[in-house]
């Protein structure tokens, strides 16, 4: 009753902390949203792979751009223990002319055999299934986009969600079409008919070791998660943003700690009286923590609304994506920081002597 009544009757005492924490909550959501936007926009094409591992050629440093796997190496992979199904994959990053649009759209033409999650079986030659982000650029089903400087035509026959590759909209085509696009627009990196950049493999057991052993070191095999982190910049982006986010949470902790420490100092006389009439330290401290949690919760709600407002006002190019799990993470982070921050007051509350209530004039 006491902590709630104080919040209700003296809201002005908590306004400063709530405002500061609301902005910090907005900042946390904004940073997290940028991280998620960058991560999702970079990794969709790999995360959506419906396979267990991805096989790169050795020496490629796990880069699709540098990796090349020819037919004989593929046969070795197919013969490895535990391998059930193997499909080739290749990417080429290009600009594409979109009907009715003056600016080029960035696309990643992706050749595949085993369909990623949500993607249908490989379409006919010259056709592609595009990531839905291309729809936002004005492309509709049935449109033909002209890819790269060679203006290779690809007709879009459908859309799939969350399959972007390095912030570019994927266009899923069959392997022969991918080779046509690659060879016409990147003649310096032309590929023969039996060449793919990497292999996606379904199977059982210790696939990575089994495959790399079968190719006698000719391949480097990664799980899907490892392949996601091997994409250029993904790991570095994540680490950088995580450091900023955790630093911000430390600031939240410091704000809560400082605020409730000051509040506790103000209340020492009152706590002395309450202890004298029978309040336990645990009860008084629980009141401080409860108020910190309530202030953090209110700040989270305000911060969320501000973040959603900011997201709605941002131009399309900013890769801000607010996903439910980011809200959950931010809320939990704020609560943990609030509890830890308010815990700084525990020592002060514990040290309040109930005898101080007697013989005190004010």
């Amino acid at each position: 009753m006491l902590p709630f009544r104080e919040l209700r009757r003296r809201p002005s005492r908590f306004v400063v902390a709530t405002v500061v924490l609301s902005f910090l909550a907005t900042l946390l959501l904004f940073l997290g949203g940028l991280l998620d936007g960058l991560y999702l926009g970079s990794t969709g094409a790999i995360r959506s792979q419906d396979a267990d591992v991805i096989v790169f050629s050795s020496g490629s440093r796990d880069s699709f751009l540098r990796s090349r796997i020819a037919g004989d190496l593929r046969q070795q992979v197919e013969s490895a223990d535990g391998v059930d199904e193997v499909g080739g994959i290749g990417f080429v990053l290009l600009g594409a002319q979109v009907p009715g649009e003056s600016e080029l759209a960035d696309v990643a033409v992706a050749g595949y055999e085993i369909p990623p999650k949500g993607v249908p079986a490989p379409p006919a030659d010259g056709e592609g299934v595009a990531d839905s982000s291309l729809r936002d650029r004005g492309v509709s089903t049935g449109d033909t986009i002209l890819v790269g400087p060679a203006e290779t035509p690809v007709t879009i026959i459908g859309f799939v969600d969350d399959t972007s590759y390095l912030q570019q909209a994927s266009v899923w085509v069959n392997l022969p079409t991918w080779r046509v696009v690659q060879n016409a627009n990147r003649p310096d990196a032309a590929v023969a008919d039996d060449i793919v950049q990497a292999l996606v493999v379904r199977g059982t057991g210790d696939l990575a070791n089994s495959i790399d052993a079968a190719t006698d070191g000719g391949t480097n095999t990664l799980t899907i998660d490892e392949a996601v982190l091997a994409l250029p910049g993904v790991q570095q982006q994540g680490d950088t943003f995580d450091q900023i986010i955790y630093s911000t949470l430390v600031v939240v902790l410091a704000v809560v700690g400082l605020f409730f420490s000051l509040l506790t100092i103000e209340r020492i006389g009152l706590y002395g009286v309450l202890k004298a009439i029978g309040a336990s330290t645990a009860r008084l401290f629980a009141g401080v923590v409860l108020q910190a949690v309530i202030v953090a919760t209110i700040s989270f709600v305000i911060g969320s609304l501000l973040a959603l407002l900011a997201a709605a006002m941002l131009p399309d190019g900013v890769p801000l994506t607010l996903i439910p799990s980011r809200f959950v993470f931010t809320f939990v982070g704020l609560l943990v920081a609030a509890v830890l921050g308010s815990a700084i007051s525990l020592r002060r509350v514990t040290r309040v002597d109930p005898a101080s209530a007697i013989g005190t004039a004010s």
Partner: protein
Amino acid sequence: MTVLDMRDVRKVYRSGDADIVALDHATLHVDHGEIVALLGPSGSGKTTLLSIAGGLLTPTEGTVEVGGHDISDYSAKQLTEFRRENVGFVFQSVNLVPFLNAEENLLVVDELGGGRGGRTAKGRARQLLDELGLGHRLRNLPAQLSGGERQRVAIGRALFNNPKLVLFDEPTSALDTKLGAQVMELIRSEMKARDTAAVIVTHDSRMTEYADRTVRIVDGRLAADGATPDTAAAAKA
């Protein structure tokens, strides 16, 4: 029947290398419904005595029994529970919770005891405030009450749990003479009406007329009404 029984109580504080004796072999008995004024100058030890009687401090030597509980060796946790259930306090500067109204300031006692301010507790709070002449001020915050009204709310809070003993720490020091006399009259009538024992610490000898008995304290030593600690000690010798 004795409500407060302090026997040969000493309280010694350590200050650097020196021992400071705040209470020196103090013995005090207070019976049911008896009002005792504890009169003494600043630094005489009356605050220490009141704190030990109320379980806010533990004695260095001697025994303290309140309402049949020997609290001399109680732990801090046991003392907290003891105070909550057995003693009422009225402090010098009133010290109501500033963001709670008059009724809620009484219900705090119920909350601290694990209650939720239910119908019974509210009924008790309203009845007490009504008896104290504050039936029309239930919803007022302390800042909206006069000094005398605040003191009456504090008395209500002290009486909420039907304690056997209520300890008053300079209850009139913040009030003018007229209001102080009214509050003392109220304390006397409320204590007598409930047959509740009270110890009233004061340095104002005019307030002792409201007590059944006055005990003087000087330099940590007690003497009965009319005697100084020195003459009492001489008589004892």
